[in-house]
């Protein structure tokens, strides 16, 4: 059975997706859609994009067999090393693609929203490379917890605007970027950071990051001679997850797992698990799963990872969840931080706290898969980003920011 080609022409993944936006943005979305349709089939655009990915961003990223971690977890763990890309995350793929599109549409200015700062840094990078003006909206709270990334963006020539509305986090940065766009669509491309928002963004972002899964699939076949039993990725807005899932969707024997930010635990209400702890609704231009109260007001999300701290999720994930093709589970802050430390200590890799959610999830499903399959399972984990930006958060969490070493190996896990 072949899966339907989604989204449909009006941007729907089943009942999800679509366009819930002010009319003022429709023309810009139509223009973007038309520009993308042409670019998608234009060999010149594709060659330019591929050239930047290979010669600038450093892809294909490695597929690394994590031997010591595999031993610990009782599963073959393959890490898709997106943390090794330029700017340290999968996001560089999306921003390069969209910045090229902005150029193609003749728009000299890009705006972006950012939570952890990773998408902001990636956008500022692409804008510098392609000579575009760049303005990044960032919740005031996030500018404080990610000061280093704010400095990076400014070094790259971007203007960072701290957003003081609402909860002063990613959700409000997104609102502010949309408002800017309503007033500036003639000259500005909104370089949206995740596979969410109004059509055609979820499709465009998915396609630009889709190389992750295409590469990983080929690398699996080359390196182990078969496909993995499961693919695990963290899900905030969901771009890295859709990027690695997409190529595997038709492979029905490959189980897809999205791990959401469970914060203090979904039952506590302090979390960012939109699918497992939210309900269907409309936010930021699309119908999807949303954290909301019984009146449809958005509820503030919480996660130790600023990059996952978002009360919505891309509409394609909502659809993959409803159809049962992918499974979504919450991972708490504590579980993620234990996995974070485990990867540091077993493999010498400091992951982004986002990616640590995927690792924690892989650790959880490993024994279940072993039992189900009756053999050692192979789990492909998307290591979506590196942890440099999270050193302060992780250091505070583990209590190791003092000059005197207080952490005893093996403790605090």
């Amino acid at each position, binding site marked *: 059975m072949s899966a339907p080609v989604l989204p449909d022409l*009006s941007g729907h993944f089943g009942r999800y997706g*679509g*366009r*819930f*936006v*002010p*009319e*003022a*943005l*429709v*023309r*810009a979305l139509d223009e973007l859609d038309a520009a993308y349709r042409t670019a998608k089939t234009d060999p010149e655009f594709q060659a330019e994009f591929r050239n930047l990915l290979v010669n600038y961003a450093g892809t294909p990223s490695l597929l690394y067999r994590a031997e010591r971690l595999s031993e610990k977890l009782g599963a073959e763990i393959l890490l898709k090393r997106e943390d090794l890309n330029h700017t340290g995350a999968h996001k560089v793929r999306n921003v390069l693609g969209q910045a090229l599109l902005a150029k193609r549409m003749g728009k000299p200015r890009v705006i972006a929203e950012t939570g952890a700062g990773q998408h902001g840094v990636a956008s500022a990078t692409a804008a510098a490379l392609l000579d575009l003006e760049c303005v990044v909206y960032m919740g005031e709270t996030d500018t404080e917890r990610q000061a280093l990334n704010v400095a990076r963006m400014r070094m790259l020539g971007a203007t960072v605007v701290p957003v003081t*509305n*609402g909860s002063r986090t990613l*959700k409000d940065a997104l*609102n502010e970027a*949309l*408002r800017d766009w*309503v*007033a*500036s*669509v*003639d000259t500005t491309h909104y370089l949206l950071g995740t596979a969410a928002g109004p059509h055609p963004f979820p499709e465009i972002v998915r396609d630009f990051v889709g190389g992750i899964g295409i590469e990983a699939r080929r690398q699996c076949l080359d390196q182990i001679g078969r496909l993995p039993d499961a693919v695990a990725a963290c899900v905030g807005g969901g771009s890295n997850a859709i990027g690695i899932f997409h190529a595997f969707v038709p492979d029905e024997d490959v189980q897809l797992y999205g791990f959401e930010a469970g914060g203090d635990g979904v039952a506590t209400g302090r979390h960012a698990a939109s699918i497992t702890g939210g309900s269907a*609704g*409309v*936010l*930021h*231009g699309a119908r999807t799963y*949303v954290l*909301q109260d*019984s*009146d*449809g*007001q*958005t509820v503030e999300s919480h996660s130790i990872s600023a990059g996952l701290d978002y009360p919505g999720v891309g509409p394609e994930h909502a659809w993959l969840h409803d159809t049962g093709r992918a499974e979504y589970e919450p991972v708490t802050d504590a579980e993620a931080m234990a996995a974070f430390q485990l990867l540091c200590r077993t493999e010498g890799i400091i992951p982004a706290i986002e990616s640590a959610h995927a690792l924690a999830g892989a650790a959880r499903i490993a024994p279940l898969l072993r039992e189900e399959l009756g053999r050692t399972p192979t789990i492909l984990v998307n290591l979506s980003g590196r942890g440099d930006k999270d050193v302060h958060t992780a250091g505070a969490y583990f209590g190791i920011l003092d000059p005197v070493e207080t952490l005893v190996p093996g403790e605090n896990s």
Partner: protein
Amino acid sequence: MSIAEIFHKARAENRALLIGCMPAGFPTVEDSIASMLAMHQAGCDVIEVELPYSDPVMDGPVIQRASDIALARGVRTRDTLKIIEAVSNAGAPVVLMTYWNPIEKYGVNAFARDLAAAGATGMITPDLIPDEAGEWIAAADEHRIDRTFLVSPSSTDERIAMTVAQCRGFVYATALMGVTGARTAVSSQAPELVERVRHANPGMPVGVGLGVGNGAQAAEVAGFADGVIVGSALIRCVLDAPDKATGLSRLRALSSELAEGVRNPAK
């Protein structure tokens, strides 16, 4: 009286209609009712009640702050319906302006039913375009709620024609590319947009919103549109006032000034 009838009455008087906006429950449920009635008594023909929402992407800082205050005090969707009922019972025609998610959460058909029962004549949906509005269009028809969609200077002629065809009561023309908030000058894009709407349907009343804040601007817009929609400037009267009485008196004064403006359109 339906919103279309109110527009036709104003047209017969050779003037534009004044629509004044206030968020429900700002700063409290009782105070918002008092504000809306004061606006009506001082000359606002129609009260646009805005349902406070956590993520109002079409609104500028003034409306968002007022909505945040209402939400922080615990205002709920059912309070908005109560406010509409009170204002409408007091004789002021009401249209609701609301972002889409709260309506979907309430239940689209149930909301249309309860909105009609509360006495509202219409509903304006800033983030719901006709393309996604199938369920709403059916529910609004069933419960006889006029539906107002937005057109923008960036809308193509095809989209204007499609949108106007789905509107009942009046069309909301956003005067400029931007969000709500009073501006120092009326947008030069507005007259052309109104003209384009008239071209699509000469009989459909057009209300112009975004950027109007004083009597002179109201008169200017009244010179080319059927309705003048004012929000942020009115809300600011309450937001910036040192006390309730001052807020109400400023609200009355500005409403009168605007009402005077729509009665003396600039030629």
